[in-house]
């Protein structure tokens, strides 16, 4: 006895399988769908925003370096007018805040709400220190006659870039701080990890982006330009 031939293509819907008769042999199990190869922290859509935001900053930084090539001496003199230790301390402060946020994510995952709240509060304190030092830096730069419109002869372009880059970044710090406070409110209400994973991971990812953007700004505006 011969069985009717059934041509099976697991990638096609069943009605497209080529069968010669109703008593055809039962089809083999369908090939399992290709397993997803990882976990996206937060919502997938957030990553389009994060990568887009990073690209915007990258474009401004590349334009800054391009302008620097036309007058490296003025850029060097201008960069020396920045308070480099404040930039360095702010880098360390944001790195610490990022580490605290990572610890808070793990504490939240483990259901340790009071610890997670303390860690998020620590990150918010770091943000306040960053903003305070940045305000002092702005005060110092503006007192010396440097403004965002760059009226000061020669160093104008450098300080226009400086105010645009650090101003946009400070705006991100403020938004990030507000998001951290939202997360802290969720922790206060003891929202479970299952119910708040996407939001918590999204806020953490945004905060880490704020940190890494500052690493790039500090390196190129404060350090490389002064060399």
């Amino acid at each position, binding site marked *: 006895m011969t069985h009717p031939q059934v041509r099976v293509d697991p990638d096609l819907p069943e009605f497209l399988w080529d069968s010669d008769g109703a008593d055809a042999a039962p089809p083999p199990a369908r090939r399992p769908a290709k397993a997803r190869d990882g976990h996206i922290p937060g919502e997938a859509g957030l990553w389009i925003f994060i990568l887009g935001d990073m690209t915007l900053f990258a474009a401004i930084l590349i334009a800054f370096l391009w302008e620097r090539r036309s007058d490296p001496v003025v850029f060097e003199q201008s960069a020396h007018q920045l308070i480099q230790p404040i930039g360095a301390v702010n880098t360390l402060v944001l790195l610490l805040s990022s580490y605290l*946020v990572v610890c808070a994510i793990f504490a*939240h995952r483990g259901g340790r709400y009071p610890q997670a709240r303390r860690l998020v509060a620590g990150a918010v304190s770091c943000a306040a220190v960053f903003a305070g030092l940045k305000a002092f830096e702005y005060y110092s730069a503006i007192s010396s006659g440097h403004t965002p419109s760059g009226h000061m002869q020669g160093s104008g372009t450098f300080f226009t870039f400086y105010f645009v880059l650090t101003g946009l970044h400070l705006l991100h710090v403020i938004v990030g701080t507000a998001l951290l406070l939202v997360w802290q409110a969720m922790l206060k209400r003891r929202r479970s990890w299952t119910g708040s994973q996407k939001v918590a991971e999204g806020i953490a990812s945004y905060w880490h982006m704020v940190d890494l953007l500052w690493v*790039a700004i500090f390196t190129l505006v404060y350090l490389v330009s002064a*060399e």
Partner: protein
Amino acid sequence: MNGAVPRRVTAVFAGLVVATCITWWLGSRSSLTGNGLGLAAALTVLIASAKIYFIGRDFMELRSAPSVLRAAFTVWVGVVAVAAIALVVVPTS
């Protein structure tokens, strides 16, 4: 998952702090760049790029993210690093 922070993350944080101190030191040693090649500047950019890569991989947890997302982030870091080093090192004509 018990929610404990992996030792690797703490080690990365310590490494980032050390790398920041190194780049700060390099940045304050202008004499090192006196050869006109901007060697210290290129090294500073390279170290900063590595810092950004590790922030993404271990803090943002891209280490366990889908390969497309990991690749997009790595390409961003690579392209920005190469462009920045080229603009710093290649002399103007």
